[in-house]
């Protein structure tokens, strides 16, 4: 990977690995402690069958997470849902054909082949209707999904009426049943997952271009229809191998939920893909484990419930876009802005006063609007930081506070000048804009601005600074 990945992605990635570890640990301890021998037996992977089931669904989670990331970013999530529902008539017809040919009809690869054919047909129907009509996309998806699924249900009904063979097991494809998974099923999933991941790695760059800006990719000469077809073929493959474990109604959850959850942790596609894979694997392994302990629960439902919990945790605590993180960032920014405003106002008022005279809160309220206790809290904070001190009859800047306030006022004026000279903002609008922006600006930008202004603005226009602005210490390493 490149240097940029490492420098930016690793902190949040590390955090997530830790979180996943903690979750897994909690899950395991709860299982062990709750004196449920069945769960303990499953998660200690003592049985061969358990290992097959959990390994198989884990790999399925990886494959679905990877291809699901691209599918979601290409905004084709619902197309995936339509495809998975469209597999049902294929399963039913494949069963019928195999029974007619003299078999039991339960030969799994045959059923999955039928599912794949039918899924591709469903996708073809969607593309065909879209090309020849002006129906909105969601309506087309709804129509094709219900027609195929309805046909599947009807054919299943007919098959069950026939006395020649028992079609009892076929509904497991709708809701999923991991318990029926055999060693060869696990191997099939492993193969398919391996192929899907290999294609994703090979076409990573192409898929990224396709998902971000298909028009540009096409103008560059990439065959976007072929790339789209490959991507959708991968979705069909992931769906089909997931039928047995999670069922055709819920397999879409494994494609959509892990990438969506991972999005709360990172802003980098390279990390997002593998994170989605990891979260998919986690959902698959834990979900199938739990469902193995409670055979009466449909596996698909349990796996999706686990994935949903992962999603909720990510939604709340995600390092990049989680709600808590955003709220904390916002609060922090607000505190920072009120603190700086208080310091500046104090500086400006005391500049007008004779030296050493304390400034009252009333005087501060006259130069700027403060909400409720905002001003008082900001002053108390500054007092704790030794920037201001409370004296008889008001507040006064300490030497440290004076220095910081002076620097801040200078930054503020730099911004005013920049906006007037370079961004063509009317001078009357400057104060408000600069007020907001200066808190967002980093030191780097300020230094750049100084250079810019020193070169273009006549010297007296820029207030002399007693202290040049030093580069911040924490950024020294970069």
């Amino acid at each position, binding site marked *: 990977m*490149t*240097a*940029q990945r490492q*420098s*930016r992605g690793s902190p949040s990635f590390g955090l997530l690995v830790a979180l996943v570890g903690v979750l897994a640990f909690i899950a395991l301890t709860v299982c062990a402690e709750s004196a449920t021998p069945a769960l303990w037996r499953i998660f200690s992977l003592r049985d061969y069958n358990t290992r097959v089931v959990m390994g198989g669904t884990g790999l399925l989670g990886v494959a679905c997470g990877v291809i699901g990331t691209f599918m979601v*970013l290409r*905004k084709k999530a619902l197309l995936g849902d339509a495809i998975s529902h469209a597999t049902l008539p294929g399963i039913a017809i494949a069963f019928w054909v195999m029974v007619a040919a003299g078999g039991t009809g339960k030969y799994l690869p045959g059923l999955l082949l039928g599912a794949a054919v039918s899924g591709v047909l469903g996708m073809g129907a969607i593309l065909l209707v879209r090309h020849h009509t*002006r129906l909105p996309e969601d309506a087309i998806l709804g129509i094709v999904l219900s027609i195929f699924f309805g046909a599947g249900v009807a054919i299943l009904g007919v098959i069950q009426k026939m006395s020649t063979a028992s079609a009892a097991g076929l509904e497991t494809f709708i809701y999923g049943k991991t318990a029926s998974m055999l060693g060869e099923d696990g191997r099939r999933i492993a193969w398919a997952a391996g192929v899907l991941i290999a294609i994703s790695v*090979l*076409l990573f*760059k*192409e898929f*990224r*271009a396709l*998902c*971000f*800006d298909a*028009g*540009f*990719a*096409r*103008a*560059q*000469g*990439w065959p976007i229809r072929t790339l789209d077809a490959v991507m959708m073929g991968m979705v069909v493959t992931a769906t089909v191998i997931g039928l047995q474990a999670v069922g055709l109604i819920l397999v879409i959850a494994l494609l959509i939920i892990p990438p969506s959850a991972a*999005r709360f942790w*990172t*802003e*980098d*596609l390279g990390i*997002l893909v593998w994170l989605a894979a990891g979260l998919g694997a986690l959902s698959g392994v834990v979900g199938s484990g739990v469902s193995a302990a409670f055979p009466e629960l449909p596996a698909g439902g349990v796996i999706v419930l686990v994935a949903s919990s992962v999603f909720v945790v990510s939604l709340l605590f995600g390092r990049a876009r989680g709600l808590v993180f955003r709220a904390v960032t916002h609060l922090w920014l607000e505190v920072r802005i009120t603190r700086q405003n208080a310091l500046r106002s104090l500086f400006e008022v005391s500049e007008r006063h004779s030296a050493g005279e304390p400034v009252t809160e009333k005087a501060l309220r006259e130069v700027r609007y403060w909400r409720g206790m905002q001003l008082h809290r900001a002053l108390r904070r500054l007092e704790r930081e030794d920037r201001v001190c409370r004296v008889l009859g008001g507040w006064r800047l300490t030497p440290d506070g004076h220095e910081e306030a002076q620097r801040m006022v200078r930054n503020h004026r730099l911004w005013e000048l920049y906006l007037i000279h*370079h*961004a*063509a903002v009317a001078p009357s609008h400057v104060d408000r804009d600069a007020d907001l922006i200066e808190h967002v600006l980093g030191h*780097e930008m300020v230094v*750049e601005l100084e250079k810019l202004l020193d070169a273009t603005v006549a010297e007296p226009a820029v207030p002399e600074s007693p202290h040049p602005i030093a580069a911040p210490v924490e950024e020294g390493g970069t």
Partner: protein
Amino acid sequence: MMLPWKMSGQPAGPEHSPYAPVSIHDVTVAYHRKPVLWDVDLDLPEGKLVGVIGPNGAGKSTLIKAILGLVPTASGEVKFYGGTLRKHRALVGYVPQRESVDWDFPVSALDVVAMGLYRRIGWFRRIRRTHYEEATKALARVGMDSLALRQISQLSGGQQQRVFLARALAQDAQIYFMDEPLVGVDAATERVIIALLRELRNAGRTVVVVHHDLQSVAEYFDHVIMLNTRVVAAGPTAEVFTQDNLLKTYGGRLTLLDEAAHAVARTGQR
């Protein structure tokens, strides 16, 4: 209808220079049977800054997309240096409209600019350090290298537009097509972009820009294509960008509406 830039009395069609970077032969584009571009036939001059102007819905973006093969044409064809687009794809750079993509996409500015190199990198190959260095240089040319690693949603509109421009620069093309690169950008960005367009033109590149601000047309462009479904006028700005042509380009719909209104009023009186 006789069009001034067509050779009259020649059934073989208008003449095109075989050396023009782009020659558009009678291109018509229709969306669902409604023509959006009607019989466009012109050569784009080499090494010039060409503005495409016209009212909303005049087919400005469609013209660019038709040239780049992004929308199907109902008739006609486009030649690049006398050859096909497929043959000369590497010579063509493109800046789509900023709103055409999802800026929440999980990539950095550098990642986006590197996409301009994908064609040269080729199928299946990874993006190497040298490619990222090249992309950084392109970002530096639009003054954005310090924001290279920012996720693109954290950039302002003007900065996003610069990223798009840098991606096109990374393509290192001979002919550039830019769809409204000056819409919604701040004054500073507009200056950066215009300086860059001139730099490209002075280096002999052809730059075609869909533009909306009539005030700056004469200042920015050497050549102008005035479009309202059909080409109203095309040629050097000094000759073509006239009050008369502007009225024909922008007033057409208004006059039509007026005539319709008059007709309705007359039938009402009877």
